[in-house]
């Protein structure tokens, strides 16, 4: 029977570029920045990297297809490089590939790197793409905020919440992330924003306003993973360990079958349940010390709090307004500013989240440091609420 990968894979080095409008550098340069930081952090020779997984979501538009852009940028010499893409779950997918390679015993040391160069697409938000030559015949071209805005109306209808009350809770999500982003030196958006400005921002997709939407950024993040034994040999006495990585993908049920009310994301629930089991977490509300979740939009983070089992059904707005997920709250969410303020270079985001948990677990987060972090969770949600790929990873220490 499968036992999962808990404590089989250590993260010995991580790197993350400054996210944002990186007019100064291309995708290759971003990968180099993240890679060099990870190598230095791991204190490892680059020649020891036996395999690499590169995550890049919008391949046709900026970085390019296949293993080659990463292999070229990092001059990975005859290394098996695999390019992965799973929409916004891409970064975690890259980490999953590298971790599985180590856990299986196929290699001793592997690299996971995610990158996106969105500001070379020319768009303010995410660029438009085909949905496939057959789907294009019927499927609407909704924007990302348009698809996630659907959660808000469905959530309000299911729980009988007045639109104004929901909007205030959503605004608090963004307000909190801006507060945190201000303390993140590598974040895209580093300014605190007051509630009135958030509430009165222009609408992007009803009821999401400008400040309900995350930043669209350039950036890269990387992780070097190995076995716990090699980690110790590298001098990491208490390395950061992967406790779980789980994915769940829609099979069309949500958008084609009439049983889902649109107010939650079933894939997040499935991935979280499996991740908790793999990590041995029985009560996430008391065992998790922090989360970095896929707050592409404020309503998404609100719903995720219930999907991860951190808030009771219908209680997320109240918990959010009570400060439960603020920096000083019981389970802080987005200590680095999240997608909202750290930014969202799609293929890099899952690894950026892991970078923050990794940093917190080692007590190296400076002004953002949270006391007593033993377990941190990352969560990605690719696609849309009704057609998604959800990824949940849990990191902790070995001892």
């Amino acid at each position, binding site marked *: 029977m499968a036992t999962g990968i808990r404590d089989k894979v250590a993260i010995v080095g991580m790197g993350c570029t400054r996210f944002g409008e990186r007019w100064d550098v291309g995708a290759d340069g971003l990968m180099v920045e993240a890679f060099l930081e990870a190598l230095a952090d791991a204190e490892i020779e680059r020649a020891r990297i036996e395999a690499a997984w590169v995550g890049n979501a919008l391949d046709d538009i900026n970085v390019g297809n296949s293993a080659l852009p990463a292999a070229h940028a990092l001059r990975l010499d005859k290394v098996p490089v695999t390019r992965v893409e799973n929409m916004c779950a891409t970064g975690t997918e890259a980490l999953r590939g590298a971790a599985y390679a180590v856990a299986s015993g196929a290699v001793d040391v592997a690299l996971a790197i995610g990158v996106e160069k969105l500001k070379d697409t*020319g*768009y303010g*938000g995410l*660029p*438009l793409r*085909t949905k496939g*030559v*057959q789907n*294009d*015949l*019927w*499927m*609407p*071209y*909704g*924007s*990302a*905020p*348009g698809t996630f*805005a*659907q*959660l*808000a*109306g*469905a959530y*309000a*209808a299911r729980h009988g919440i007045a639109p104004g009350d929901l909007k205030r809770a959503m605004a608090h999500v963004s307000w909190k992330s801006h507060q945190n982003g201000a303390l993140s030196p590598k974040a895209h958006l580093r300014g605190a924003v007051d509630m009135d400005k958030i509430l009165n921002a222009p*609408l*992007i*997709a*009803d009821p*999401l306003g400008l400040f309900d939407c995350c930043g669209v950024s350039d950036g890269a993040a990387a992780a070097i993973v190995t076995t716990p034994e090699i980690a110790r040999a590298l001098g990491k006495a208490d390395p950061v360990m992967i406790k779980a990585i789980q994915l769940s993908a829609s*099979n*069309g*049920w949500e*958008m*084609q*079958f*009439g049983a889902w*009310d*649109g107010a939650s994301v079933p894939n997040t629930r499935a991935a979280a349940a499996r991740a908790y089991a793999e990590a041995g977490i029985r009560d996430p509300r008391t065992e998790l010390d922090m989360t970095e979740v896929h707050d592409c939009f404020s309503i998404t983070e609100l719903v995720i709090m219930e999907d991860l089992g951190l808030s009771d059904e219908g209680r997320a707005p109240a918990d959010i307004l009570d400060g439960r997920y603020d920096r000083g709250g019981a389970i802080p969410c987005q200590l680095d500013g999240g997608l909202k303020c750290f930014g969202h270079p799609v293929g890099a985001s899952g690894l950026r989240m892991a970078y923050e948990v990794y940093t917190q677990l080692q007590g190296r987060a400076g002004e953002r440091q949270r006391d007593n972090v033993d377990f941190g969770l990352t969560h990605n949600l690719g696609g849309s609420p*009704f057609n998604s790929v959800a990824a949940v990873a849990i990191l902790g220490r070995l001892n």
Partner: protein
Amino acid sequence: MSVLAQSFGIAALGGYVPLLRLDRKAAARELAWSGLPMPRTGTRAVADWDEDALTMAVEAARLLCRESAPDALRFASTSAYFTDRAQSGMALDALAMPRTVRTSDAANSRRAATSAMLDALLGRQDEIVTAGEKRSTQPGSAAQLAFGDGAVAVRTGPDAPARLVGHASLSFDLIDRYASRDHPFSYAYEERFVRDVAVAEVLVPVVRAACDAAGIAPGQLAHAAVHEPVGGCWRALAKALSSKAPNHCEAVSEMAGDLGTAHALYGLGLALDAAKVGDFVLLVGFGSGADAMVFEVTGPVPGASAMAAELREGQVLASYSRFLSLTGSLELDWGMRAEFEQKAQATVLERVGRDMVGFVGGRDSAGNVQFPKSAFPVNPELSGVERMEDVRLADLEATIVSVTADRLNFSPDPPFDFGLVQFDNGARVLMEMVNRPADGFRVGDRVRMRLRTKAQNRRLGFRTYFWKAAPLVRPVLGDA
């Protein structure tokens, strides 16, 4: 000028007028500085960006083909999008009719629809003749405000409640207006010239001949539906014929505009709605000559009263610049998102195109319906591959599960409303929404399906069509 197929006539009619109506006075006021002459009364029906002659013609024909397929489906328009792809064949698939139904397209004359209908009547055929029009016009031209967008459909058949009792046709190359490949906007000649010649040389002789064929005097006509090339023709014609019949095409012009190929037949719907049993009703289609037909009413004509109601429904289009944008007269810079154009592939359309334009889903062995069909059903109760039974969703109502008004996504007429729509038979579809209510769409709203343009590739000159969700009820003009 022949004697008639006595028992044949009009079995039913259907009409479609788009929701938006431009107040001509308001539009004329915008152009007052120019001093250009243009109509100032009534409203002009304006198609949405995603409506065209085909989609509107299908809407008009929908009610006429529920019980059985006709022998033939005819499509008429002077503004059809495709010039080498039969709109009638596309309409056939959109209406989910068998491919054995004969089809043909008629164009190049405003009377193409009346001529096609007369052929059907004389051939004693059960046919649907549908006509749609969305003509390009130039700002400042009287035509831009006088024309309207809309469609009509007529089903011919035996034992009909409006029997053809006389007809006449006259071919006459009178150039009252024209459009050509090099001049796609309608070019109009001097109105007095057109009125004098059209009435004296075309309309009077053809209507007299039709009445003679029917064995009645023109004064016996109770109602008329005469497509006037210019205003005042019916007044002059009625005077010459000693007829006191009202011309119901005038109401169409007043409330929707000149509907081109659909105009005379839309007026006929109003005339038949107003007529009593025993009345004689005159129809005249005009364009490069005229077709005149006299019908004797023997009972209520299905669909006629709905056409009168359709004309009264509408939503005021207050913005003149939005009107210019919708009619293609104003090219806004919509930014980078408007640059994205998909290329539809003929191979894919051959495989699944009928299910798309016909909105046909599949029923699995457990009874659940889904769209689109798939080898493995989406129904979690089933785990094996199976062949699904066709189920048409186009004629069903549904309920909104989730929705937003997307202001980031490009739409030629923002915002872009879309969301999940739930059909009562189990099918759930992510759909665009149209005919936005004043206070927007909401979760729980009931919706109906409308055929629209799905995507348009302007560089390649190609469109695809799919169905979009619209409110069940349209507001009545004046209440909107």
